[in-house]
């Protein structure tokens, strides 16, 4: 059971109502965030910029989100993003690796390096060495690496939030 109120549209503060769809629906995450409408004004555009397609393609971004959520054991984000990753074109085998269902050795070099970056970034950024950076920069530009790293941080933020508040996973 959620530790924060999940507001229906007609219960939500005036400034938060725009996050609900025309039929009044919204994800449990958004319904919980509606309790803090002031923060939504900056949080949602920020998350939108980080999670939407930017310098990095969406299948790669979703692979990263799933891996971070797996590392943090976030039920909500795995339930939301695993199907979304598939829908957006992330290969099923890559998702299976991100969810520890297949060995990392089965990944192409680019995705392998990205997931290694994710693992070290989440576990201990001090463990990142120049060799890993060099291998990554064979596959992604530095601005893309920045974008992926901010995506890792934003995903961690939501993982921790959803887990701590026990936000129920979306159907």
């Amino acid at each position: 059971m959620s530790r924060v109120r999940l507001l229906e549209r007609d219960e939500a503060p005036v400034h938060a109502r725009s996050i609900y769809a025309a039929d009044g629906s919204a994800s449990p995450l958004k319904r919980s965030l509606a309790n803090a409408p002031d923060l939504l004004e900056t949080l949602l555009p920020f998350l939108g910029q980080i999670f939407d397609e930017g310098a990095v393609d969406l299948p790669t971004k979703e692979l990263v989100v799933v891996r971070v959520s797996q590392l943090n054991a976030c039920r909500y984000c795995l339930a939301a993003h695993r199907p979304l990753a598939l829908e957006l074109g992330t290969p099923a085998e890559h998702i299976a690796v991100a969810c520890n269902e297949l060995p990392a050795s089965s990944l192409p070099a680019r995705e392998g390096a990205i997931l290694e970056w994710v693992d070290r970034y989440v576990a201990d950024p001090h463990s990142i060495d120049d060799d890993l950076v060099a291998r990554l920069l064979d596959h992604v530009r530095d601005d893309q690496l920045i974008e992926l790293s901010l995506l890792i941080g934003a995903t961690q933020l939501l993982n921790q939030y959803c887990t701590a508040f026990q936000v129920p996973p979306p159907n």
Partner: protein
Amino acid sequence: MRDALENAVAEGRCGNRLWLYATYHCNLACVYCLTESRPGIANRRALGREIMVRAATDARDLGFTCLGVTGGEIFMLQDAAETIAELGGILPTVVLTNGTLFTERILTRLEPLAGSVVALQISLDSPEASHNDALRGPENFARVATAVPALLERGIRVRIATTVEDQTEDELSRLCELHRSWGISDDDHLVRSVVRRGRAALEDMGVEPGPMDILPELTLTADGAFLHPFAPTVRHGVTDLDLLVSRQINPLEAAVSRFLRVVADQPVGTDVARNIR
């Protein structure tokens, strides 16, 4: 920001008063209470003197021209008299109180309000003690009938507020005779409906306010800033957020900015059909 607020007030989109919910704690448990205030409430959510004074100062700078203090019952707070005097030194202030806590000691501490721009607005719902007390609590009528003359004798302005639910016309006429006998004019007698929110909604009392029935007046509580003083209602211990404007109340400018964005959607010349103020 000041110009925007003054324009919104001039156009009738909102009021010029800033409301402060001093506390949700109360010595009474009125059947129609919007906030489920009562004795022994666990989470009193008092704003505190420092925050109220800062909000009042900011309000004056931003173009508000008067204050309202409500609750809960402000005289449940130890420093209520001094806080009210300080607020009155910043802007004209009306203080809503149930009028039942005016001991000699508190009356003495209120004496600096004599002849000031502060008015105490005391709730009284019927000239019949039994009916009034059924709505507001045991011995309420007797305490109010004692307090009002005592305040007036000290030169403190008193208004009477009557919340209408099932009173008869005759009963209301006799209530007017009573306040006139105390020297309180009809201009200082406010009659309004019970609003069907909070405990009143649970008790199936009052009128359902339409979107245009209540003039927006920025209202600060410990839970945030709301659209009007009838907005921060409580049901089953949970604050309604449907009319929350901002969680941020300090500095006041942040809340005013969001408030103005909401009232921008109000029609020009908004009037309030039910005089719910």
